[in-house]
Structure formats: structure tokens, C-alpha cells
């Protein structure tokens, strides 16, 4: 063991001991001492305080965990899951087409291209949006003299097939290429957002491929009257099946003039040739 080998060993031992000792002190402080001392105030025994400090139990050491006795009172009961979302992508369009001929085209027109403005156009609409509205009609989260009965007459697979079928129409334009807006105020509403009124840009959710909420409907090419009426229903709170009131909060901040202009803007959205506005 010449001098250098002894020196090497000394370095190895010294560094290992220091690193492990520091690690031990850090763990001791963080996992035992701090939680135990903090836990005393909330009347917690050290074991519970340790469990909270490690993350096995909810809560932080020094404070008792608040309790809630609220009871769920949801409006829309649609909960997304990978099972539903994959089913919508692989829905049976032919079965959907047959079913649509039988129950939907009377009002919504051939392939969902309704001409009567009180019935929304369905062709090219997002599959998730169609699925959610049909399920909301089924559960009563959304009510309509005719649609409630029609929806309740469908089972889960029929709803998925219809959504998949209409989603693959191509009359709606993909909003991936927003049209330039001359009116600065409208451009703020649609593309830039109006922070002083707390209104996010419409295209933050309704634009194409923007990672917004799953059930966001495509608006391009929809009847302006239908869009206008839905915005008014949201503003008055009569329509309440938007999760956590997103659309109710926004619609109630729009002036009637803006509602009309927005509805006209999105209806005027001409389909982009050759681009299949497939549902996402």
C-alpha cells in the first residue's frame, strides 16, 4: 500500500462518507424532523405526519384536512374516457348512415346538410360534440321538444355510429386556416382574445387542432340563426349543459350585436375545397 494507493483510498472513503452523510441528514430533516415538529400543532401523531410528508396520505403536516359534505349535482353527465374516444374514431359509419336516413335526415337534411335554419347542420361536425349533445339529450342535461325523444330512442352504440357517420361529412370547413378579419374588434373576439372583458378568443377552442376541450363543436358553416340562438340560450342560462359553465360565462359577456356578428362570421366560413373536414 504505497502512499498514492493510501491517498486514493482516503479520498474514496472521505467522499463516500460525506455524500451519504449529507443525504442522510437531508432525508432525516425532510421526512422525519420537519413533519413531526409541524405535525404537533395539528395534533398529528408523528406517523401520520410522516405519511403526509411522504405523500401516502393527503394533506400537509401542520393543518387538518378540510372535509366536504357537498353532494354531486352535475348537469352534463358525459365523462370522456379512452374507450369512448377510440370508439368514436372507429365508429361504424355505414350503420350510422342507415340509422341517420331513418331518424335524422327528415329534419337535418340529406347527409346532415339541413336547409331549415332551426335544425343545425351535422355534416363534418366533431364526433365528440355530436356524441355529447346526443347523450345530454338522453340524460335531460339538454332538452328539446323533439330531440329528447329521438335521443332517448338510441342506445350507446347507435349514438357512437351516428356521431362517427356525421363527423365524416365534408360540408364544414376546417377552421385550421382562419379567414383574415377586417373589423379589429371582431378579430379580437375571434383570434386575439379580449382580456379586459375576460373573453378568450373563440378560436382558442373552436379553431382547428388547438388542443381545446374535447367536446368543442366545429362552428364553421353552421346556420347563423342556430348559432345565434344557442349563444342567446347560453347567455340567459337556459341552456346549461356546458361543463362548468364555460359557454354560459362567455356568452353572458357578449353584447347582442357581437352575438349576431359572430354567428354570421362563422356561417360565412366557406368550406375549403378538397379538404375533408373530418371530425378530429
Amino acid at each position, binding site marked *: 500500500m504505497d502512499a498514492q494507493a493510501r491517498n486514493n483510498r482516503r479520498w474514496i472513503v472521505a467522499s463516500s462518507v460525506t455524500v451519504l452523510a449529507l443525504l442522510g441528514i437531508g432525508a432525516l430533516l425532510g421526512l422525519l424532523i*420537519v413533519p413531526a415538529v409541524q405535525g404537533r400543532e395539528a395534533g398529528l401523531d408523528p406517523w401520520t405526519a410522516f405519511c403526509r410528508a411522504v405523500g401516502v396520505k393527503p394533506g400537509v403536516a401542520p393543518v387538518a384536512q378540510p372535509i366536504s359534505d357537498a353532494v354531486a349535482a352535475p348537469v352534463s353527465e358525459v365523462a370522456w374516457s379512452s374507450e369512448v374516444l377510440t370508439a368514436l374514431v372507429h365508429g361504424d359509419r355505414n350503420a350510422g348512415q342507415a340509422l341517420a336516413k331513418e331518424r335524422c335526415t327528415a329534419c337535418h337534411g340529406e347527409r346532415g346538410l339541413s336547409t331549415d335554419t332551426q335544425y343545425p347542420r351535422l355534416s363534418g361536425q366533431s364526433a365528440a360534440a355530436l356524441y355529447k349533445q346526443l347523450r345530454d339529450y338522453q340524460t335531460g342535461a339538454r332538452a328539446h321538444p323533439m330531440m329528447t325523444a329521438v335521443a332517448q330512442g338510441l342506445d350507446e352504440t347507435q349514438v357512437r355510429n351516428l356521431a362517427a357517420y356525421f363527423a365524416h361529412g365534408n360540408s364544414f370547413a376546417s377552421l385550421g386556416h382562419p379567414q383574415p378579419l377586417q373589423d379589429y374588434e371582431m378579430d379580437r373576439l375571434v383570434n386575439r382574445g379580449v382580456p379586459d372583458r375576460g373573453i378568450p378568443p373563440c378560436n382558442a377552442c373552436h379553431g382547428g387542432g388547438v388542443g381545446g376541450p374535447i367536446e368543442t363543436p366545429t362552428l364553421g358553416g353552421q346556420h347563423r340563426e342556430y348559432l345565434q340562438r344557442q349563444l342567446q340560450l347560453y347567455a340567459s342560462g337556459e341552456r346549461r349543459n356546458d361543463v362548468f359553465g364555460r359557454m354560459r360565462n362567455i356568452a353572458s359577456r357578449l353584447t347582442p350585436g357581437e352575438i349576431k356578428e359572430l354567428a354570421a362570421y362563422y356561417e360565412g366560413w366557406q368550406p375549403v375545397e378538397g379538404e375533408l373536414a373530418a371530425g378530429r
Partner: protein
Amino acid sequence: MNSARRLALANFWVAFAAFGIAAVLGVWQMWARSPWQAPLHTPSNYFLSVTAHGVSMAYVLSTFFIMGFGYVVAETALKRPVPGIRWGWIAFWMATAGVLIADLAIFSGNASVLYTFYPPMTASVWFYIGLVLVVAGSWIWCVQMLVAMAQWKRANPGQPVPLAMFATVANAVLWLWTTVGVAAELLFQIIPMALGLVETIDVGLSRTLFSWTLHAIVYFWLIPAYIAFYTMAPQAAGGRLFSDTMGRLSFVLFLIYSLPVGLHHLFMDPEHAAGFKFLQSFLTILVTVPTLLTVFTISASMEIAGRMRGGKGWFGWIRALPWERPMVLATGLSFFMLWFGGGGGLINMSYGMNAMVHNTSWVTAHFHLIYGGTVVLMYFAIAYEVWPALTGRRFASNKPLRQQLWWWTIGMMVMTLPWHYLGLEGQWRRVAQFDYSDPHIAEWGPWVLVSLAGGVLLLLSALRFIVNLLSLHWRAPGEAPPPLEFARPAHEVTQVPAVLNGFSLWNLLVLILMAAAYGFPIGHALVERAPAAIVHRMGG
């Protein structure tokens, strides 16, 4: 300096090309955030730009510069050709292809998920494939560096590895350790999600795996600057390195204490409990020690140089230093910014104190100062130092180089000081458009304009830098430049302890530290599966 010359130049130019583009985007973003109307100012353009700025500065400028500089160090310090040059070119072309693929995804608007790409927001799969290619390329570089040192040690048994190479290999080891986190996240969670194979993702686990990488990656960027402090600044100042041993110890401390500390990026996250946050805050403060050692060791080295040039008294050596040399000037300016950047870091890591500044402009100011300032300024100085050796020509004069370094430092300080103040005022991050009609936010307007002025100066400096380097390629080859030399220690080092000449012990200690620091947090997330979130796809 021949076999690796063209490979190093190729890596440097990809780095500085990305840097130039990102600098322009950075200034547009400052303009867009200010009360003045910027052109093309929409949220989608803004977040596209922030993603491109982040990816270019954090992944392209850094990784390619480090690879290029590694080749220069390996060739010059070890005085033997870099092993596997063919592999070096494969790595380069693979990484460059990755950059192009990722940029295409970003600039087509399909990848506005920022450079941290936190799920469940999901970009087009090409964005992630591009990043994977860059990381894979850098892994090849790491192997080359390890092989180079191993070959040298076999050829020179018992000799201390030159400090510059020891530090470069420490950086490669650190990079191999830290990319495990983001590679696992990309491979097992993000890419399957982006391919559409799954519709949900465990967000907590993904953020934990990314935090594994998120801190040590900033030390991966930082170590080349410290290599310049230790081995190039004393040489440029005409002095000697005060302590070679302390240099090795600092790089070892960076290696072991920059890895088990990633949770300080998740202090405000609900997926981890206070215990492990405190442990990693405790370990984070230990990573300040090597920097505090370096500040003294390099000041002492500069003092030796200053006194050798006749500096007298306590601080006479400061005036006596050759400030006209870019490397010396850069070291001084870099240390000045390190005080502010490091100080900001000390606040961020102090456990509960992070709540005061998390996701505010204070954090933006911190990483612009410490990476954009301290580190990137040394990237400039290193480039100025090695460009003559790479191109065979001398700079006509140091004046434009010094000017560029001053503009960068002043621009960075002017941009980041208001940010610190605004961060404490509550200005939050990544905002495409502030509501300047809100009285609380209106007060920020003038300060954002001051930051914009700093940004414009930074852009001028960035463009000046690229022109400075290009000018060397155009100049007629005059007198051959002197060969690149690294600083010698004040007292010749004949042998060093084995642990300061290799990494086997440190790899073992890192393994133990990572198991202790991340074992439970990741294990707990894997065992007690948190409910998954639905994927939100951006882009086509």
C-alpha cells in the same frame, strides 16, 4: 487540429444558426408582450414563437455547441485525433435532421406545446421524433468522449487527465444520466400518446420524469462555460490556474449534485409531498458549493495573472488584467451576471420561498441571466478563442468582439432586472397579451418596454456575433494563428487521486443519490396510479 476541425465547425454553425433565428423570435415576443402593437400578434403565433425560441436556445444552441466544443477539447487537450470521427458525422447529421423535423412541426403550427412539452397538451409526433434524434445524436458524442479519455488513459497510465477533458467527460456522464428521465417520458408516455395509440396520460408521472432531466440539463449547458473559466480564462489572462485539484472537485460536485435535485422544479406541484421536496431542496443547496468554489478559484487565477503583469496591492491586479482580450472580458462580465443569476437561483430553490416566484417573470429572468447571460456569453468567448484554430485565420481586431460582449451583457441586464421586479409584482409567464387596461397590469407596461429595449440590444449583439464569426471565414488567410493551449496550474500536477481522474465512484454515488431522491416519488407514481388525463391534441 484537423480531423475534428470540420466536424466541430459544422456543429458550431448549426448551433449559431438556431441561435440567430431564436434571437429574432425573442425580440418579437418582447414586442408582442409590450403595450405597443406588434405585427402578426396572435396567440397562436406567440406560442409558436415561444416554442421555437425555447427549443432553439435550450436544445439546439446548447447541444450542438457542447458537441462542437467537446471535439475541440478532445483533440487539443489530449493531443490525439478524436476516436470514431465517422460516428461523429452520423451523430451530427442525425441531430441536424432532428432539428429540421422538429422545426417543421413547430413552424407549421402543429407543435405549440413549448419546449417543456408538458402533457396532456400533445404536439404532432414529428416534434417529439425530432427531439429524440437530437438526444440520440448527443449520446453518440458522449460515447466518443468516454472512448477518447479511456484511450488516452491507457496510453498514459497514472497520468492526470487534462482538466479540460476531465470536465468534458464529466459533462458527458452527467448528460447520459440526465437524459434517462426525458427519454423514458418520451418513449413510454409522450410518443405513444402523440401517435394516437393512447387517449389518456399520467400527467404527474410525466412531469416527474421530465424534472429528472430538467435541472441537470442546465448544468450540461453550464459546464462548458466553467471549462472556459478553468482552462481558457487564466491562459488568456497570461496567468496560471490557481488549483487544478479544486477544479476537478468542482466538476465532480456538479456531476453528483445536479442530478438528484429535479423536484425543485415541482415544488408547487400537487403530485409530490413536502418530505421529498425538502430533501431535494437540501440537495439543491449543495449544488451551489461548486459554483462558490469556482468563484474564488478563478478570481485567484486572475489575481495571479494580474500580479504577473505588475498589479500591486489588494486589487491592483484587476486593473492590470488584459481586459482587451475577449476571453478575459467575457469572464469578468460573466461573473457579474452570475451574481444576479445565481442569487435568483438561491431564492428559487429555498423550499417554501419558491411560492413567491414560481412561474413568474422572476424565473424567466433567472434562466435568461444564468443561461442566456453567464453561459451563452462564455459560448461567445469560447467561439472567439477557438475560431482562429478552426479557420486558420486571426481576427483583424478584438474591438468588434469586445463590443459584442458588452452589448450582450448590457442588453441582458437591462432586459432581466425589470423582469425580476415584475415577477415579484405577480407578472405571470407565457402570456401572449397583457390586459393593459387593468390598473394593476398597466403599471407593468413601462417596465416591459425597458425589457424590450434590452431585447433589441441583445438582438443587435446576436447579429454582430454571427457577423464577427463569418468575417473570419471571408478574411484572406494571413499569418497562422497560435495553436490553442489550455491553462497550466500554478503548481505542476504530477498525479491526482484516482477518484479525481475517473468517474466510477461518482457513478455509484449518483446511483445511490438518485435512488434516494427519485426512488419513492417515481415508485409511488407507478404503484398508486393517479387518474389519467385526456389527451388534448394540438395541430393536424
